[in-house]
């Protein structure tokens, strides 16, 4: 019996040991990507956004020839606004490069002769000096070739790194390179390429004409445009990306920056899977994923219901005011179990279903006798109210602020009509008025003061700074309040 027991234990232990061994050999295989054998040569397929080249599938590692051309060219930022983009392959973001781990990429960077500036490329997928930048610095009308082996699978940003680096990136010189793992990424139905970028123009957002780059704004990180794929509307309307109900969509999302981090979100969808920061770690059931500038993420989700799903940077003013908005149009059969749409419309009564009347808020108060305080007390109390409520705009000595807030100091407007003045404190005032010969056009909000406080503060104001010393009674305040 005892013998049997120890035999069992032995078997268990040996099982555990072999498990450990298996794990180790797996790790070794990952570390050895530098030695992956390459077989054959092929030209890389390059695509403009929002499209991506065909998946690598289970092809062997190869020598992959990438030919990329740099073009400086004028394009449209939004309707009526032109911008000179500097591009990899003629598009912003630049052409999508798709490789697999172990590929030997032979990269030729050509700078078009019509261009004015030297450029280079720093690919974050490169293990080597400057990410290739040192070896690819190329004058207009020339080309440079260098090669690198893709050691780490993942989704990587590439960008220009020529001085001034920020300006080259701000003008659109970035894109994505994907390094797929051995055997490729799991199959999905639709794949798209999206990249966010922030732009800085001399004119404000929407100012027409050819807009030059504004370095001051770029340094202040005060973006005029934050967009997907290089321009406002690159992914909306007819340019929207599409899918059918039931399909799984994979988005390769990058952020070129130069400055802003993206809070990438798809309205009405939850990401089933996110490769955080474009690496191996997978998070599931994500609402919004953070994509740093110079970083990327792979997001995947199955579209279960039809409709238009809005892609945004959920730093939401960027989406609705600066352009960071795209669309995914999903067509197919509705599924009422998942999303019903509007089921019923009705009237909402907070008090229940019975017939309601609007409450009468203008109850005429009984003009009760209110004990009036002595004048000195009113002025003292009124000053307190003034310093907490009125001081910020009308200033300590009632002088106001020129062109913004009218003075109460020797104010003709104030002294002309006491009831009007009380009314302004009670109800607020908007629009142009003339005080002591100067025009003012701003807004004073309705003040939440008790009748006694209004009487006190008005009395204080009328008895200060050369005004007409009116003693405003609580009853006068009530009278004004009830007069309309």
């Amino acid at each position, binding site marked *: 019996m005892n013998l049997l027991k120890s035999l069992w234990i032995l078997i268990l232990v040996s099982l555990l040991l072999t498990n450990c061994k298996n794990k180790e050999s797996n790790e070794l295989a990952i570390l050895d990507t530098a030695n992956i054998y390459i077989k054959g040569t092929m030209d890389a397929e390059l695509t403009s956004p929002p499209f991506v080249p065909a998946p690598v599938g289970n092809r062997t590692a190869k020598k992959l020839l990438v030919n990329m051309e740099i*073009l*400086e*060219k004028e394009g449209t930022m939004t309707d009526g606004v032109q911008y*000179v983009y500097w591009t990899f392959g003629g598009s912003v973001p630049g052409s999508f490069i798709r490789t697999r781990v172990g590929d030997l990429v032979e990269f030729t960077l050509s700078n*078009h*002769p*019509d*261009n*004015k*500036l*030297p450029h*280079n490329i720093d690919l974050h997928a490169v293990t080597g*000096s*400057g990410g290739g*930048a*040192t*070896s*690819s*610095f*190329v*004058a*207009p*009308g*020339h080309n440079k070739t260098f090669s690198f082996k893709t050691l780490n699978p993942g989704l990587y940003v590439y960008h220009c*790194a*020529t*001085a*001034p*680096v920020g*300006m080259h990136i701000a*003008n659109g010189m970035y894109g994505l390179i994907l390094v797929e793992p051995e055997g490729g990424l799991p199959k999905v139905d639709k794949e798209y390429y999206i990249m966010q970028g922030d732009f800085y123009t001399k004119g404000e957002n929407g100012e027409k004409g050819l807009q*030059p*780059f504004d*370095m*001051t704004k770029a*340094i*202040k990180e005060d973006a005029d445009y934050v967009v997907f794929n290089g321009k406002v509307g690159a992914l909306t309307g007819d340019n929207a990306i599409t899918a059918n109900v039931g399909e799984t969509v994979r988005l390769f999302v990058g952020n070129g920056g130069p400055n802003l981090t993206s809070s990438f979100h798809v309205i009405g969808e939850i990401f089933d899977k996110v490769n955080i920061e474009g690496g191996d770690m997978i998070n599931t059931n994500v609402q919004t994923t953070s994509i740093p500038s110079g970083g990327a993420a792979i997001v995947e989700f199955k579209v279960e219901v039809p409709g238009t799903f809005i892609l945004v940077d959920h730093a939401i003013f960027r989406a609705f005011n600066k352009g960071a908005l795209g669309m995914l149009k999903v067509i197919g059969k509705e599924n009422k179990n998942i999303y019903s749409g509007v089921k019923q419309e009705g009237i909402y009564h907070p008090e229940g279903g019975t017939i309601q009347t609007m409450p009468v808020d203008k109850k005429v108060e009984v003009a009760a006798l209110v004990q009036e305080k002595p004048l000195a007390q009113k002025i003292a109390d009124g000053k307190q109210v003034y310093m907490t409520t009125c001081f910020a705009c009308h200033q300590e000595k009632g002088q106001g602020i020129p062109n913004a807030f009218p003075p109460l100091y020797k104010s003709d407007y104030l002294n002309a009509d006491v009831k009007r003045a009380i009314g302004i404190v009670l109800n607020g005032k908007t629009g142009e008025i003339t005080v002591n010969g100067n025009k003012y056009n701003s807004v004073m909000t309705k003040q939440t003061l008790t009748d006694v406080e209004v009487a006190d503060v008005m009395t204080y104001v009328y008895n200060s700074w050369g005004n007409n010393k009116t003693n405003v009674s609580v009853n006068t305040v009530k009278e004004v309040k009830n007069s309309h």
Partner: protein
Amino acid sequence: MKTILRLVIFTIFAYATAINCQSKMVKIKGKAYIPLYGRDSMKVSINDFFMDVYPVTNKEFLAFVKKYPKWQKSNAIKLFVDESYLRDWKSDTLLNSNQKLNSPITNISWFAAKSYCECLGKRLPTVDEWEYVAMADEKMADARIQKNYNAFILSWYEKPKSFNQTIGSTFKNYWNVYDLHGLVWEWTSDFNSVLISGESRKDVDTDNNLFCGSAAINATDLMNYAAFMRYAIRGSLKAKYTMKNLGFRCVKDDKTN
């Protein structure tokens, strides 16, 4: 005797043609100044010299290659020019129909530019000399702090395809020199003396002066940004390179002092 006579006649002839081809020059009064972005942040002394008022034109270069056939497109030694040398010309001695006689010559190598200047008894300007004259606007010898002036330069750098304009189409500066900004890049004799490896971020380590240059960049200092770009383009060149946007002009020492 005959040979001497021939030599004399040739010298006179050569001298005469040289005079004829001599484009207008103006005197630049030298001074010590701090380059925007130089080899060190110390002052550089500039001696008085003469500078061509305009960049060398297609017409002038055409005359040059007619006189010196070794610089014609098909004869030029490949060590000294790349494949794009005079690329748009119809033949060795004919411009293309869309090229204007008074447009600046481009697609020439440093060797060709240097040889041209030397054949006229001139030379290429140094980076420091070029930058010294180029920091002037219409009214001031040093306009580096002027916002409009800097914006003008930057806007030209940003825009592609601005070649094929004619000389004199931009502004005349303080020294009565035209077209230093807004027409074409220009060769300098020591263009490669500031080493920009192409990896500007790394340059920060290898050359402290470049670090100073880049560190000085801020909102009020647009000129450094512009200078940065000029040094970047110079750094990307090799002496045999030719570019569609790259021309040159010559200078001459002032022998009077």
